[in-house]
């Protein structure tokens, strides 16, 4: 059964080259992230004033910045802050949202109503503006950019998990567990969560691209990672001053953001079509 399903999935993947491209990009980015110390030709923080603002060349493929740091090395190391920040953001909002949503849907009644109204209010905010205000209040740092974005994205998972729970709570096995006197925590953990994860994981994959973009945007306007951390958004921001004569400086870190976000979005989009029977064949 599992084997057939896997073959089926593999067949459908092969019909969607764009999804495979997304998967390849994601794999490549993760690889770069893990192997950064081996791949980066130079120390990303080492100043080398003799070669400041050098154009791309054989020695420095992406050129150098205003204090002579190798931009290729900084883009490679930057994946660690930018992509990790994206993944952590989504991990927080996904786990928090899924837990709240599952319990809210399972408990029903006034608790559920109250939670959902709070989520409506949060969803009605323009999310970037809320994240920006929160990050500004907390003070500029990468962590203080991650937390607000995670909070702002949590309601999406609450809704998703609650919907899943509502469709599962009257299933026979959940009813049976209840009649045996299992605790709500046990039922949610053992029966509800494992059976409602697929759409949540798809949403999370799509969200990682968005989170990477948002974190880098906050860094760009000065609310995220601070110098000398190698982070893509912050690198575009500092390269901005030089872009008229040193086009390479902001170009490569920005390209890294675009390619990475596209990879996660293409893959997530394809995954959604693969797993959602309603979208299949559309």
């Amino acid at each position, binding site marked *: 059964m599992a084997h057939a399903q896997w073959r089926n999935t593999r067949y459908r993947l092969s019909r969607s080259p764009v999804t495979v491209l997304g998967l390849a990009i994601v794999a490549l980015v993760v690889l770069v992230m893990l192997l950064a110390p081996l791949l980066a030709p130079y120390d990303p923080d080492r100043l080398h004033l003799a070669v400041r603002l050098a154009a791309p060349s054989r020695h420095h493929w992406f050129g150098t910045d205003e204090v002579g740091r190798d931009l290729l090395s900084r883009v490679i190391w930057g994946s660690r802050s930018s992509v990790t920040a994206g993944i952590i953001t989504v991990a927080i909002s996904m786990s928090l949202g899924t837990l709240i949503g599952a319990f809210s849907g399972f408990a029903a009644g006034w608790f559920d109503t109250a939670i959902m109204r709070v989520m409506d209010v949060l969803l009605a*905010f323009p999310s*970037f*503006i809320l994240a*920006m205000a929160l990050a500004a209040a*907390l003070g500029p740092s990468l962590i203080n950019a991650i937390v607000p974005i995670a909070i702002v994205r949590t309601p999406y998972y609450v809704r998703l998990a609650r919907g899943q729970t509502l469709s599962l709570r009257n299933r026979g096995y959940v009813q049976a567990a209840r009649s045996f006197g299992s605790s709500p925590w046990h039922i949610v953990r053992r029966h509800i969560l494992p059976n409602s994860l697929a759409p949540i994981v798809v949403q999370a994959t799509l969200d990682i691209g968005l989170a990477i973009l948002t974190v880098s*945007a906050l860094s*760009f306007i000065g609310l995220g990672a601070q110098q000398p951390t190698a982070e893509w958004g912050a690198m575009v921001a500092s390269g901005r001053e030089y*872009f008229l004569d040193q086009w390479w400086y902001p170009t490569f870190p*920005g390209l890294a953001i*675009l390619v990475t976000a596209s990879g996660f979005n293409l893959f997530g989009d394809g995954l959604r079509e693969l797993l959602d029977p309603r979208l299949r064949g559309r």
Partner: protein
Amino acid sequence: MSLLQILCRRLLLAIMVVFGVVVVTFIVSHLIPGDPARLMAGEHASAQTVQHMQHVLGLDRPLPEQFAIYVGRLVRGDLGLSIRTQRPVSEDIRHFFPATIELSLAALLFALAFGLFLGVVAAVYKDTWIDQLARVISIVGISMPAFWLGLLLLELFYNWLGLLPGTGRLQEGLAAPPAVTGMFTVDALLAGEWGTLRSALEHLALPTFTLGFVILGIIMRQIRSAMIEVLQEDYIRTARAGGLSPTRIILGHALRNALIPSVTMLGLTFGDLLYGAVLTETIFAWPGMGNYVVESISSLDFPSIMGFAVVASLAYVLINLAVDLSYLVLDPQIREIG
């Protein structure tokens, strides 16, 4: 559920949301590290001045009372005094608002025109290379950091080709047209100042493309999936069997019906417009609210940041309420289901 009941429910929710916005911004402004009174009074102020400032700002009163004062001020349109510009924040926002509206409207028009076209074409040629290409364009649009796209366009069209101006809203030395709407293109058109209009349009081009491209992907996706759904309906098959031309079926029958579910998306797009405008205005030194708030952030001007957050959030809530209500009017099915 009757239309009236639905209306009441939506309105009630909107009021709750507005209240939520006020509560959240109040909480956030109290999270601010350091003492706002000290920020206001300046770095070298004496303890006595800071205490006086605390009293003036009402910061020495209990929290519920502070909240009541805060709400009272908001109702009167008082958003506090900007630390950076030393002007009332509401005045600043009024001053910078038209430029943002002009840019957002231009970007929305651009994105709608291309998004509709690409969405329809992708749906009609579903699963062909055209569809795949449109999908890639849409994903690249969604994944594009607006601040970076703006820089690239500046580099290409301003620095290398010299075709378009770099930053600002008008050529240097050119006077702004007599203010009617505050949008330079519209005002220049109304006053018949063609030279000014041309300059305003040239300055608007790159920011519009930057902001529009980011939204285009979202619009295209929505139109594509709505069109695909509609194209499978029986009445389309009937129209086809009746021998109507494909163009007429697509534009006259399918698109009209696909647009209805897409209306709600417009309200949500406003959030993305706001987000994009903050980044785009920064790059192009476009003197709008986005640029204003980023400059406020770099000088820790919290009254301006919070003022902008309140106004932007309220605008977002109201626009979405308006969109929801127009949706009710447009789609009779919703009225019956609720």
